[in-house]
């Protein structure tokens, strides 16, 4: 289990863990160190890591991963309603149900590849979204969303203690995870680190190499003796389970679930995160998730007043048009900013932020060596 990773991988893991756990301190200067945002970054990081196992390794672009996010959330909330406010059974339920779901959707969608696969997954997710609003309202509570009520049975909890006066909080053996405090953040942070560790293992494993080979030349794989369908299905189910866990964590930090979590925009968001950070890289998807969630928070809270504050020093004749132009990009219009940034990245940095970092790094190295070093193909890290 812990054998076989190279020194570099362990350093990467250690650095990643340290960064995630120290986020409350590190993110202080940029004003992002409050638990609600940090746990969102962790949850979407998990979502994006899982998505990247499918998209980054096999090249199969799913446009329906939000369905798993939604199923995970509903499963977790039902566990809170029926059994206990402890999050362990809730997360397990989320994992089990999304896995079953992913097997079914993957089995059918993976009969096609390329754009047809994307469309099939999109169709499934939209179907789930619409069902949640219509026939499945007994399970999903329709537009109101699935919430905790005082009338919920909570059989396991009821066996041990009398229900309190108000709505109970989700807990991990006494640690409050849904109160908006650091408990919820550390739960998500540790889940993210564990998920990242498994992703590194998959990337370095023979299974990961087979997935990359499928992406590179699937026909060749078949004539090399591989049955590619189960490999793809395994990757699909693993990434679905990641999304389910993310959905479960959303419920664990805020015990309600709504169908909008399954909408196609949510599926599109994880595609953006992965591409923005760097498809097929280990940390890229997490960086993408962090950047998008952070800026979403910052930009969407900006209003005209903030802009007037920033540009107040300018003469009115310039300030007025400038502010009304920029206000298109903030607040409700934050998606416009995201769209522009995304276009710039795809056009100029197809490898995402990770490629940008790599370019800066190699430029710095070259300058350091007096510009004489010739680019040599870096050998793969061996043992």
């Amino acid at each position, binding site marked *: *289990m812990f*054998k*076989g*990773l*190279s020194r570099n991988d362990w350093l990467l893991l250690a650095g990643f863990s340290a960064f995630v756990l120290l986020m409350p301190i590190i993110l202080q200067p940029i004003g992002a160190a409050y638990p609600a945002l940090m746990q969102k970054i962790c949850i979407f990081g998990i979502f994006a890591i899982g998505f990247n196992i499918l998209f980054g390794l096999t090249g199969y672009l799913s446009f329906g991963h939000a369905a798993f996010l939604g199923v995970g959330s509903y499963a977790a909330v039902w566990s809170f309603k029926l059994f206990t406010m402890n999050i362990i059974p809730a997360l397990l339920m989320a994992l089990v149900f999304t896995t079953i779901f992913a097997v079914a959707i993957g089995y059918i969608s993976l009969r096609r590849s390329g754009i047809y696969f994307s469309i099939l997954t999109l169709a499934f997710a939209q179907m789930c979204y619409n069902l949640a609003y219509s026939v499945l309202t007994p399970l999903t509570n329709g537009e109101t969303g699935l919430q905790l009520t005082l009338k919920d049975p909570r059989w396991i909890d009821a066996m041990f203690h009398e229900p309190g006066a108000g709505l109970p909080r989700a807990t991990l053996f006494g640690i409050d995870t849904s109160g908006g405090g650091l408990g919820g953040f550390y739960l998500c942070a540790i889940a993210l680190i564990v998920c990242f560790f498994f992703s590194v*293992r*998959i990337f*370095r*494993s*023979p*299974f*990961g*190499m*087979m997935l*990359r*080979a499928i*992406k*590179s*030349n699937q*026909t*060749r*794989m*078949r*004539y*090399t*003796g*591989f*049955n*590619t369908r*189960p*490999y793809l299905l*395994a990757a699909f189910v693993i990434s679905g389970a990641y999304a389910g866990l993310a959905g479960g964590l959303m419920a664990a930090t805020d015990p309600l679930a709504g169908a909008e979590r399954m909408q196609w925009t949510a599926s599109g968001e994880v595609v953006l995160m992965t591409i923005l950070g760097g498809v097929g890289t280990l940390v890229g998807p997490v960086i993408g998730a962090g950047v998008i969630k952070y800026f979403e928070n910052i930009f969407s809270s900006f209003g005209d007043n903030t802009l007037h504050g920033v540009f107040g020093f300018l003469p009115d004749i310039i300030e007025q048009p400038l502010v009304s132009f920029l206000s298109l990009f903030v607040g409700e219009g934050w998606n416009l900013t995201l769209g522009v940034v995304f276009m710039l990245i795809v056009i100029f940095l197809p490898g995402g932020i990770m490629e940008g970092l790599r370019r800066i790094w190699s430029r710095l190295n070259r300058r350091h060596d007096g510009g004489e070093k010739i680019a040599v*193909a*870096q*050998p*793969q*890290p*061996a*043992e």
Partner: protein
Amino acid sequence: MSMSNVVLHVADVHKSFGGLKALSDVDLQVMEGTTHAIIGPNGAGKSTLLNVCIGRIPPDTGAVVFDGEVITGKQPHEINQMGVVRVFQTPEIFPDLTLLQNVMVPAFAKRDGAFRLNAIQTVSNQHDIRDEAEHWLEDVGLKDQKDMTAASLSRGDKRRLELAMGLIQRPRLLLLDEPTAGMSRHDTNSTIDLLRKIKARGMTKIIIEHDMHVVFSLADRISVLAQGQIIADGTPDEVKGNPKVQEAYLGGPRQ
């Protein structure tokens, strides 16, 4: 190793594409341990025959029997797992992987079968497969470039890489579709030497080839295909003297 066993039997295979008869009444037996060359003018149906053998194209009638088992209608990966490996005419490699990884992937297919969810081990810990892959890369003369990405290779080098990918599976039957096309004379000769070396180990091979130098250097038996039919079949000397063959190659009146 007995030379009398029939490893592959192409039994009365017909194949038409639309109105065009690609293969008609083709019957071919390949003996264990031999190198069997299939030659013929362009468009004679050689590649179609090879595609039928590996299950890429289903024949209209007839069947392909490998080692006593009908392989017609089986999936490509099943045929590979039985020990039939094909090296393609246009190199089919993994362009995004390194040379070493390209050769390691088929070794995993040989060891672990058509599917194994091995996410616990790491690739770098698979010392046996790694050593074997390096050994075969050395045999085809590409060991120095093992950490390069395969996409950057020349066409001739890609063919040699694909040969190593086939050989590491130690197939019972190796199908080679013009293995030296696009290679320099020097590389052609080293490929011939390599193929001779594996012949000494008893591997059965079917070779499609235009280069008569390669054919007569390697083949134990030659079948001549013209217009979808086998017009001659025999040892190299028998085939050389066959008037029908000369006619087909010199473009005389066709039968």
